[in-house]
């Protein structure tokens, strides 16, 4: 395997590493950088547990190669947590028990945050549709939808 040197920004820090061309972004984050908050579920782009932000857009970490991220900005749950940007979502997930095992949760939060960034209060059906690429095997989704809806309403109330 030939190694490629890549330079990228991960959670605001510049990172320079040599990676194999075949190394996926999520494996790079987890194995090379120790950012284990991004999880691996199916490794073929279906379950969504590996979702991270690439230049602000949520992507599948298992379908993105690390070399593709050369020169780009990646944000993981660790960075999004430390920035405080997800604090209201995280707190509402906690109080509403919108997670059980927590394995899907980092990706679910990032996806929900992307939906909420639109600024409106989506319907429950719209929330369900937006989250349908993120599998949760524990909750049955009801509590997750409750939490996302509650945060949307709270944010709308705060700005109106």
């Amino acid at each position, binding site marked *: *395997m030939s190694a490629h040197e890549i330079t990228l920004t991960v959670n605001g820090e510049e990172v320079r590493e040599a990676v*194999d061309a*075949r*190394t996926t972004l999520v494996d790079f984050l*987890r*194995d090379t950088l*120790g*950012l*284990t*908050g*991004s*999880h*691996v*579920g*199916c*490794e*073929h782009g*279906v*379950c969504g*547990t590996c979702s991270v932000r690439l230049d602000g857009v949520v992507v599948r970490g298992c379908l993105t190669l690390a070399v593709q991220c050369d020169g780009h900005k990646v944000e*993981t*749950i*660790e960075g999004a*947590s430390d920035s405080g940007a*997800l604090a209201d979502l*995280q707190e509402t*997930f*906690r*109080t509403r*028990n919108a*997670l*059980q*095992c*927590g*394995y*899907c*949760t*980092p990706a679910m*939060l990032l996806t929900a945050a992307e939906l909420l960034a639109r600024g409106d209060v989506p319907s*429950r*059906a719209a*929330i*369900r*549709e937006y*989250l*349908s*690429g*993120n*599998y*949760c*095997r*524990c*909750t*049955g*989704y*009801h*509590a*997750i*939808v409750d939490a996302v809806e509650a945060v949307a309403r709270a944010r709308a109330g705060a700005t109106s």
Partner: protein
Amino acid sequence: MNDRDLPAGLTTLDRPNSYIGRSVPRPNLERLTQGRGQYVSDVSLPRMVHAVFVRSPHAHARIKQIEAGAAKRVPGVIAVVTGAELVKVCTPWVGVLTHLKGLKSAPQHAIAVERACWQGEAVVAVVARSRALAEDAAELTEVAYEELPAVTDAETALDKTTPVIHPDLGDNLTFERTLDAGDVDKALKESDAVVETTFVFGRHTGVTNEPRAVVADWNEGAQRLTVHHGTQAPHMMQNIFGKHLGLAEHQVRVITDDVGGSFGIKVHVYADEMATVALSKLLKRPVKYVADRIESFVTDIHARDHRIKARLGVTNDGRITAFEIDDLTGIGPYSVYPRTSGIEANQIVNLVGGPYACPNYRARARVVFQNKNVMCQYRAVGHPIATAVTEGLVDLAAAQIGMDPVALRRKNLIADDAYPFGSASGLKFEKLSHHASLDKLIAMMDYERLRREQETLRARRIHRGIGFAAFIEVTNPSAAFYGVGGARISSQDGATVRLDAQGAVICHTGVTEQGQGAEAVIAQVVATSFGVPIERVRVITGDTDNTPYGGGTWASRAAGIGGEAAWQAGKALRANVLAVAASILQAEPKALDIRNAAVVDADTGRERIGLDEVARIAYFRPDTLPPGFQAELMATRHYVPRAWPFAFTNGIQASHLEVDLDTGFVTLLDHWVVEDCGTVINPQLVDEQIRGGVVQGIGAALFEHCLYDAQGQLLNGNMADYLVPMAEMPDIQVGHVVTPTADSELGAKGAGEAGTAGAPGAVMNAVNDALRPLGARPITQMPITPGVVLASLGKV
């Protein structure tokens, strides 16, 4: 609730720090929402290497030759190990229990020796410095196979012309159970109608989001094995790792931190995990194995593959006279160790007809070997099948005699004042609440309005259905489940609580956290019984070096058994702390209580001394205590149900859905559940267990299916082709009736499986309710795919 050891004038719920019945958030969620969990797949140790497995592409094949030379030459490869080599480190096992009479199985190895018996069985292990390198080397490993005839159809597994998978066993029959209660023939003869059909349930699996994962670390210098293991039962695994690797249990430590979904999948012994542990012993360094998704589908236990011929007799006035079932299930080539693969069929025999007061019941269940992946216990073991069969028959009978399905249930459900009650299959019910639950459900769903709406919409060619499923659920198992059959699976559980040096309480418990909220429930219970704000309780789980011996999490036992042990331990520590305080204060212990982290006068509530001060004196100035007085600031209690072999919960579910007659698609509109799990310790956590369970049951009803071809090849073993419920599920309304068990002071029974038990039957009945006026053939198979719906309508 038994309040016998509480201070006068206060019930448990009145205590200042009572958290029983309150929706307290779980203490571990902030960590998980920030991505700061510690799953086994996250664990990395110094010198750690990675194992991958070359797996049999055939359902049944002789292993003729393994050529590993090229693999071994790959830089970074540490070892390539065959089954014959590993058997010197790890002995084989046989999954039988003596109380399931006649149950037989064959020795199973960590890695196949000479023969592979299902597609996916591990044949060679490759260990390398990275997983990617190990996978590269695995591709260079050449295995020559001689294909053998594969036994895949359970229907013909017992035919004389079918090859016997394990010739030493004589035939392919794993286990058979028959039961004949009352007089079924007479009852059927005297019935006005007998409904008869065959139910077929699709094989499916748990699809935990985190695949199975293990990091084994044999320390040659310490002669100790530490296993980081995503399991539900650390002590059970400690015993098994020790037993098969030739170690004493005290040489084995199993650590279970966060687990990314279990659902019964992670309570069994898996050959590849045993191999990983054996490889660590062989190589004297940490070895990690994480299943990939394809491996998960062909090796995680499957469940629910049953064909059941069933009959029910009923009189014209709606009295159910008899149930009869004949169950056939194929469980793969081995009975799974140590819980066996006979339990699911056994439970179906136990549970069919369970909610109803019908004394006539005949059953036969046959469990057969086949060359497919193994089947074993998955969430709600047997319940979804028994419930769907029972409730499917009840709806067929209601249609046959022209009676409303609710009215027929009301006429036959065991009366709420009939307890204690013994079922036809021999189950003993302490106290259930079928009628109260049904009444509550009918009110919640506004049944009459829904029926009117259904009629109105039908005229507009909108076809909606309403389906019910009453159920019972086994919880809080005593030793009757496994212990009496010889398995070292603890039914008792322990809790140790100690006062730390600043007056906080640390609780070590044998039950484990799988995301269901056991840590929260244990913290609530200890805070209440001891007398501190819940923030001052820290719960430690999942470490055999640091928790009392216990069973872990299965059969909805964590709250009912682990909770009661913690309750008793909290009370014991309170008594110990009050003895210290009394000696400091020169008071009678009985005159004192602990409230809000302080020792107070029991009568007035006036604060006498803080717990921090009690701890300071006991730990740092014991010289000031009276001569001969020894403070004991740690207490352990254990609990196992004794009065009843199992607790039973009950409940009823209803599904409301719409069927598109052109596409066969089913749209779920509403789902209601009323369940009775006894004392509700944390209402939010109970509701979320129910909701999550319901959606897993919906998966069984509509989506999930491990599709095999006639050669034993799994056709859809990936997440794109195997469908699971996505976020487009209905909202699920949950109500409760509360009938505590008198076997414990807390009275909690357990709620982990009720949702899964009832949902498939309710959905199936709702689909049939929608289609019945169209003359459709009743659907009695799952999953109910669009193709199944269109076939029932005669359109395909």
